[in-house]
């Protein structure tokens, strides 16, 4: 039973599916094939992403390491984006997908503010091929593929088999077995969102917000450019 304003849960509810992803970071080689597959699947415009692979350098020469961390919508079991949307344009499917009704979204960006994982973006208004624009979009866990028995595009293309997808309510699924046997973490569990992307062996520098600030020179200049470009008044006007 949901408590208070929580969304109706799917995790552990008999008769329901709870689609989830496990990302085994020991296997990720940072090839970005998943990012490309996703761009191709949805014709994701330049400048926005449904999924990324976060790159993080730690340490100082010669003791350095480069970490990769695929990021996407966590399809939270208790998603704050859904609770705060004024039009119910974003909603939670009973099998756990958090989806968008594009024809209803007013692009007020409340859901972007509500999401603690930066998983949402605004689509530009004028697009060449896909005509959906001027609304908020996000990863859908490829529900159109999953409902036909296919794996999400990023999972299918992942050459390290780092991304694994399945039904967490099914004890025999690969994701259930991985979550049962390995030490997994979810991002920001303290926010009460019950995220459903489980990471095997992430680095602390990737999971802790305060410590995840960029350290490498390239990342620092990236960050500076980001701040300079996106201060105050240009925030939204530049997006649409």
């Amino acid at each position, binding site marked *: 039973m949901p408590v208070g304003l929580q969304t109706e849960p799917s995790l552990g509810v008999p008769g329901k599916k709870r689609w989830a992803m496990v990302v085994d970071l020991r296997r990720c080689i940072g090839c970005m094939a998943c990012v490309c597959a996703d761009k191709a699947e949805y014709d994701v415009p330049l400048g926005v992403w449904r999924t990324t692979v976060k790159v993080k350098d730690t340490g100082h020469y010669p003791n350095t390491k480069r970490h990769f961390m695929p990021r996407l919508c966590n399809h939270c079991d208790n998603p704050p984006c859904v609770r705060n949307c004024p039009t119910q344009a974003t909603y939670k499917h009973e099998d756990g997908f958090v989806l968008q009704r594009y024809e209803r979204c007013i692009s007020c960006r409340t859901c972007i503010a509500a999401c603690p994982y930066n998983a949402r*973006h605004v689509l530009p208004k004028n697009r060449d091929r896909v005509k959906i624009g001027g609304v908020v979009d996000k990863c859908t866990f490829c529900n159109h593929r999953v409902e036909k028995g296919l794996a999400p595009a990023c999972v299918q293309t992942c050459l390290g088999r780092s991304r694994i997808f399945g039904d967490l309510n099914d004890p025999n699924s690969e994701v259930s077995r991985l979550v049962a046997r390995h030490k997994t973490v979810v991002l920001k569990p303290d926010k009460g969102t019950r995220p459903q992307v489980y990471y095997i062996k992430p680095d602390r520098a990737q999971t802790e*917000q305060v410590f995840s600030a960029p350290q490498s020179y390239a990342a620092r200049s*990236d960050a500076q450019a980001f701040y300079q470009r996106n201060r105050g008044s240009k925030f*939204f006007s530049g997006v649409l």
Partner: protein
Amino acid sequence: MFEYMDYNIAPWGHEIVIYFFLIGAAGMTFVYAAAPVVFGNVFGGAAKSMEPFQRVGLIASLVLLAICGPLLIVDLGQPARFLYPILYFHWTSPLSWGSLFLPLFGLCIVGFYYGSIKDNQGLMRWTGILGSLLALSMPLYTGLDLMVNQTRELWSNPTIPLLFVILSMSSGTAVVAVIQLLRGQLDQRAAEFLHAFLYLSLAVTFALFLAEWVVLNYGTGEKQQAWEIINQQFAFKYWGMTFLIGILAPLVLVAIPKLGRDPKILTLAAVLSAVGAYSFREVLIYAGQLTQINF
């Protein structure tokens, strides 16, 4: 390139900041205009000093509403769908409630104005009371809009809606003081009345500013991160525009017994407090969004 996820640029920009400011000012301007009818003889009839402001105050709040309503609509990615929050009402979203209350507030202003033309005391009383409640709900819902984001710790704080109501008291007082001063109608009684409200709102703002300081410095990692961002990127707006110009200076002015009640000084203090009310909101709205962009 991928270390910063570029698409998650803070989604609420200056349009929202201006809207939050103007809607608060519009609400409080209406409360002042309706005060003689709503409060009548309460507090020794002090609210009666606002009688000369009634009609012009109604027009002022309507004008403010006419600016910020369309501004909010234009800010949407899909302006034509501006009625959807009412049509597809979602009761857990403060934005839905705000979208419902906003036109009702506009209707109350028009109803009150109509009542004042027809000298219909009953209509004025009802639209005055209902309109004042709706007027208060405007800054309240804008604050709630931020507060309900439990994952943004600078916002997820029960003082934010209260702070926004108090800030709108300052900006509303500034609107009244400037208009009445320009019309040459800011007499001693009116100045006394406005002085009491400005003093109260500034004192509470000062207390909430300090509370914010404590909460951010004694808070979690994200709160400390927010404090760092405020001090690095918004230092001038936060300490200069908000604290020194917007809170401390006007508070000193209104606290000096004789000086504070002088109509011109009072108006100056009210305008300064409105500057603070704007920049306080601006810093909170922007900084609250920035804490997560490097996550």
